[in-house]
C-alpha cells in the first residue's frame, strides 16, 4: 500500500511522521533528531545547507541563511507582514515578477515556496531513508489562519519537492487528531501552540461526522521560543559586558555560540533547576588573550526574564475566547503543542488560566506531524470514519457599496457547497456592476483578501435598487471557487473561476520542480561518489603506511623499485580521479588500489 507521510512544516522546526500499523511514529533524521530546523542556507562555496547544519551557521552567515520563511509564504509583496520581515530579517527579500516575494541568496533569487520546498525535500529524504522506498504523497499542516493563497503556496512547495500534497490540514486539527479526538466526539477544545517562532491559540469545536471547526484562532507570529532565547542572550551579554567591558554581540562567532548555548540552557531548565553555561574562548581581546564565559542560570532567573512573554500568551488566549464568544469554563480540554510548552512556567500559566491540566501525553513538538500522518493514512485507506471534512478556512463574499464586505459562504462551511444572494444597483442608470470576490472575516472589504474580480454589463437603465442581480458562490471538492452573477431580468450572466495562487505560474513551478529533482539526483550521485572516495582514501592510507616496510624489504631490487613506482603512480591517479569527482574513475582506481594493497601485505608478511 502506498505510504503517505505527515509533515509538520513549522516556522522554526519541521517534523515528519508515518503510520506504522496502527501507531503513528515520528521519523528521526540522520543525526537522530526528531525535528529538523526549517533553515536553508547557501555557503560561500555555493553549497546548500538545510536543517541543523544550516542553523549552526545562521549568524555567521546571516545574509545567506533563510529562516521563518513560513511568515512569507503565499503573501503579496505589499502586505504588512512582508514589510515587517524586510525590516527584521537578515537575508534580502525582493519583489518577484508577480508582485510576490522572492529571497536573494548569494547570486540567486528564490521564491518562498522554493525555499520551503528545500525543507520539505529534506523531510522527504528523511522518510525515504527510514522506509527504504520512495515517498510520493504527503499531508502537510498549516496554521489555521492561513488563507487560500498561503495554502496553495504550501502545496506548490510540496510539488517542487516532488511530493503530491493530497491534503492540507490545520495544525490544531492535526494535534487534536493525534490526541484521539475523532468522529464520535462532541467537544470544545483549546489548542495552545507555542513554537520556536510563533504562538497560536485555536478554539476547536469537534462535532459529528469528523468535522473539526475552528471557531476562532489568533496568536502572535513574532512570539516564540526564540524570544525566550533572546532574553537569555541579553542576560549573558550584559553580565559579560559588566565584567569585561566587551559587547559580545559585536562578534558573530560569539553570538552564534551564545544563541546555541541559550537554547540549550533553556531546554535543560525544563528538567533541572539550574544549568551551567560554559563558553571557553568566547572572545579574543586585543592583548593576545582569550576570555571565557561561565555562568550558572537557574530556573527562577529564566522565569523572571521571560514572565512577560508567558503573560502575553495568556492575554492572547483571552482574546481567542472573546472571538469565539465562549467562556473559559466552556473549554473542555486543552492541548499543548510546540516545544516551548515543555517549560514549567508555561504549563503553570496555561493550567492557571484554563483551570484544568492540559493534555501533554504526546510530545508537543511531534503531535502535529503525528496527526498529519494519521490523516494521511486514513485518506489512502479510505477510512471514511477517520477522514476530516474540508472546510473553508475563511469566509467568502463580495465587496458592496461603501466598501463593505458581504459574506456569502461563512467560515468553516464544509465543501462542496453553494450559496446564492441577490444584490441590486447602487446608483441610478447603472448599466454595469463590478463583482469583487473576497475572502476574510472583516466587515470592511479592504481588510480582507481580494481573490478575483469581473464585470457584468448590459444592465437596463433604471433607478438604483430596481435591477436585481443574483450572485452565486460555489466551491467544489478541490477547493476551486466559482462565482456567477446574473441579471435576473434579462438573464445576462458572467462568471469567473477563482483559484488560489501562490504567486508562481505553472511554468515556474515546473522549472522549480525540475531544479529540485536535479538537486536530488545530484545528492544521490554524490553519496555514491563519497562512498567510493572514502574507500579509495582508506586504501591509499593503508598503502602509504606500508611503503617504508616495502622499501625496506624489496626497495633495493629492480623489481621492487618498479613495484613501488607503479604503486605510487596508482596512488597519484586515484587522487586525480577523486579531484575530478568522477565516480566511475574512482571505482576503477579502487580496484587497482585493492590489488596493490594485497600485494604489499603479502610482501610484508613474507619479509
Amino acid at each position, binding site marked *: 500500500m502506498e505510504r503517505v507521510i505527515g509533515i509538520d512544516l513549522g516556522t522554526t522546526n519541521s517534523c515528519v511522521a508515518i503510520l506504522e500499523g496502527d501507531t503513528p511514529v515520528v521519523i528521526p533524521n540522520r*543525526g537522530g533528531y526528531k525535528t529538523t530546523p526549517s533553515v536553508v542556507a547557501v*555557503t*560561500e*562555496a555555493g*553549497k546548500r*545547507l538545510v536543517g541543523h*547544519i544550516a542553523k*549552526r*551557521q545562521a549568524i*555567521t*552567515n546571516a545574509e545567506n541563511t533563510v529562516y521563518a520563511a513560513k511568515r512569507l509564504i503565499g503573501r503579496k509583496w505589499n502586505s504588512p507582514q512582508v514589510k515587517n520581515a524586510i525590516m527584521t530579517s537578515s537575508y534580502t527579500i525582493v519583489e518577484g515578477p508577480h508582485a510576490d516575494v522572492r529571497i536573494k541568496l548569494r547570486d540567486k533569487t528564490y521564491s518562498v515556496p522554493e525555499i520551503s520546498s528545500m525543507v520539505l525535500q529534506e523531510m522527504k529524504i528523511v522518510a525515504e531513508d527510514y522506509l527504504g522506498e520512495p515517498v510520493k504523497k504527503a499531508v502537510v499542516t498549516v496554521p489555521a489562519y492561513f488563507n487560500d493563497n498561503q495554502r496553495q503556496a504550501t502545496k506548490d512547495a510540496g510539488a517542487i519537492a516532488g511530493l503530491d500534497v493530497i491534503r492540507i490540514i490545520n495544525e490544531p486539527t492535526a494535534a487534536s487528531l493525534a490526541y484521539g479526538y475523532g468522529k464520535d466526539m462532541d467537544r470544545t477544545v483549546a489548542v495552545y501552540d507555542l513554537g520556536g517562532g510563533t504562538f497560536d491559540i485555536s478554539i476547536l469545536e469537534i462535532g459529528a461526522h469528523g468535522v473539526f471547526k475552528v471557531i476562532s484562532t489568533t496568536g502572535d507570529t513574532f512570539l516564540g521560543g526564540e524570544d525566550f532565547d533572546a532574553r537569555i542572550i541579553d542576560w549573558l551579554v550584559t553580565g559579560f559586558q559588566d565584567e569585561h567591558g566587551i559587547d559580545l554581540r559585536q*562578534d*558573530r*562567532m*560569539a553570538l*552564534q*555560540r551564545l544563541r*546555541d548555548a541559550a537554547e540549550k540552557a533553556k531546554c535543560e531548565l525544563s528538567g533541572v533547576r539550574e544549568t551551567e553555561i*560554559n*563558553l*571557553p*574562548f*568566547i*572572545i*579574543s581581546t586585543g592583548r593576545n*588573550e*582569550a576570555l*571565557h564565559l561561565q555562568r550558572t542560570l537557574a530556573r527562577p532567573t529564566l522565569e523572571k526574564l521571560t514572565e512577560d512573554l508567558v503573560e502575553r500568551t495568556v492575554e492572547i488566549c483571552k482574546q481567542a475566547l472573546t472571538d469565539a464568544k465562549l467562556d473559559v469554563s466552556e473549554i473542555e480540554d486543552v492541548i499543548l503543542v510546540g516545544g516551548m510548552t515543555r517549560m514549567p512556567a508555561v504549563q503553570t500559566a496555561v493550567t492557571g488560566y484554563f483551570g484544568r491540566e492540559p493534555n501533554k501525553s504526546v510530545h508537543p513538538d511531534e503531535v502535529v506531524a503525528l496527526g498529519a500522518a494519521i490523516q494521511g493514512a486514513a485518506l489512502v485507506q479510505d477510512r471514511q470514519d477517520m477522514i476530516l471534512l474540508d472546510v473553508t478556512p475563511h469566509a467568502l463574499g463580495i465587496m458592496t457599496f461603501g466598501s463593505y464586505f458581504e459574506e456569502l459562504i461563512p467560515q468553516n462551511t464544509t465543501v462542496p457547497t453553494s450559496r446564492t444572494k441577490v444584490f441590486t444597483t447602487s446608483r441610478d442608470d447603472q448599466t454595469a456592476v463590478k463583482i469583487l470576490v473576497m475572502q476574510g472575516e472583516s466587515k470592511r472589504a479592504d481588510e480582507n483578501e481580494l481573490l478575483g474580480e469581473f464585470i457584468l454589463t448590459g444592465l437596463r437603465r433604471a433607478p438604483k435598487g430596481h435591477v436585481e442581480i443574483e450572485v452565486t458562490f460555489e466551491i467544489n471538492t478541490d477547493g476551486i471557487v466559482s462565482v456567477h452573477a446574473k441579471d435576473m431580468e434579462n438573464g445576462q450572466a458572467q462568471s469567473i473561476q477563482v483559484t488560489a495562487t501562490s504567486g508562481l505560474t505553472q511554468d515556474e513551478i515546473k522549472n522549480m520542480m525540475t531544479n529540485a529533482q536535479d538537486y536530488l539526483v545530484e545528492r544521490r550521485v554524490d553519496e555514491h561518489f*563519497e562512498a567510493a*572516495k*572514502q574507500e579509495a*582514501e*582508506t586504501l*591509499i*592510507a593503508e598503502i*602509504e*603506511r606500508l*611503503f*617504508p616496510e616495502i*622499501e625496506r624489504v624489496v*626497495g633495493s631490487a629492480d623489481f621492487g*623499485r*618498479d613495484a613501488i*613506482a607503479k604503486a*605510487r*603512480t596508482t*596512488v*597519484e*591517479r586515484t*587522487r*586525480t580521479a577523486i*579531484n*575530478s569527482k568522477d565516480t566511475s574513475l574512482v571505482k576503477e582506481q579502487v580496484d587497482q588500489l585493492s590489488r596493490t594493497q594485497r600485494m604489499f601485505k603479502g610482501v610484508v608478511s613474507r619479509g
Partner: protein
Amino acid sequence: MSNKDRRGINSRPSSAPPGPSPIEANWDDETVPGLDLDDPLNEFDRVTAIPALPSEQYVKSVMETVEDSRVPAPGTPPPRPPLPPSAKVPSLAADEYFSLDSEPPPSPRNADSTAPYAAILPHNAPTARPPEAPRAARIPAVPPRSLSLTGLELADLDNSDGPQATPPARPEASRLDPRDPVLELSLDEPSPRAETKEALAGENAIGNMKDRYAMGDFSGALLIAEGIIEHSPDDLEAPRYAQSCRDVLTQMYSARLGSLDQVVAVAVPSDQIRWLTLDHRAGFLLSLIDGGITVDQILDISGMPRLDALRIMYQLLDQRVISLGS
C-alpha cells in the same frame, strides 16, 4: 653537511630563482688537494658548489648577494601568473623518482611532539597540566618520505624561459613532504603583522614575496601579498601570488588532515579546555563539534575563510585537542 645531503641536493631541481648565477670558486670546497683539475678524467671535478650552511640560510644569503635574475630583460614578455595545480599528475618512470636515501633536516618545531599542552595561567591559579590525551590514530594522506626535499627544491622552477620574472610553478602537494622543515614553517601561524609591515616598508616587497614563494614559505608569501594588495590594490602580481599561496596551503593542510569526511571529536576533557592556549576562532570551531560533524561540515560553517579554518583545524589536531575518525 653529509655526503648524503650533498648527493640529494645535486640530483634535484633547484628552487632558487631561475637563471644561472655565478658561483665563486671558493665555494667549491669539494676538490681534493693536489688533483689536476684540468684532467678531463678527474672524477672529482664537479661544477656544483656545496655550501657549508644549512639550506635555508644558504638560500637567504644567496638571495642577498646574487643579481636578481627575475628582472626581465628589455623586450621580454610580461611574467605569467602562477600556474594552477596541474589537474593531471604525470606518470613518472622509475628513473624519474628521486633518491630515497636522504633524510630530511631536523625540524626544530618537531623537537618534542609529546610535550604537554601549554598552560595559560588564570589570574592566580597554579599551572595546570591536563593529562596527556592519547595521540589520535591519524591516517596519513601523503606519502611517507619518498622525496627528500628541502626548501631549495620545493618549487620546480621553470628555468627554461631564461631570466624572466616568472612565478614558479606551484608545487604539487602530493610531492611535498609535510615533515619538511620549510613546510613546517609554512604550516605554522603566519608571521605577525609587524613582520609584514617591515617587509613592505622596503622597496622590495614584491621581491620579498617572490623570494618567500620560491623558498616554499607560502604563509609568509601570502602575508606579504595580502599586504601589497592592501596598499596597492591595482597590483597585478600580488593577487595571483596570493591565490596561488592559498591554493597550495589549502592543499597542504587538507593533506595533513586527511579525508575531510572524518568525524571530529574533542580529545580533551571539557573541564580542561580552558587551560589550553587558544583564541576565540579556535574556540568557535571547537564549539561546533558535536560528535557527528565532519571536517568538511566544520569548514562549511566555520564563518571564516576556508584556509584559516583548515589551519586552525590542523593546529588543533597537531596539539591533540581534537581527533579524527570515521
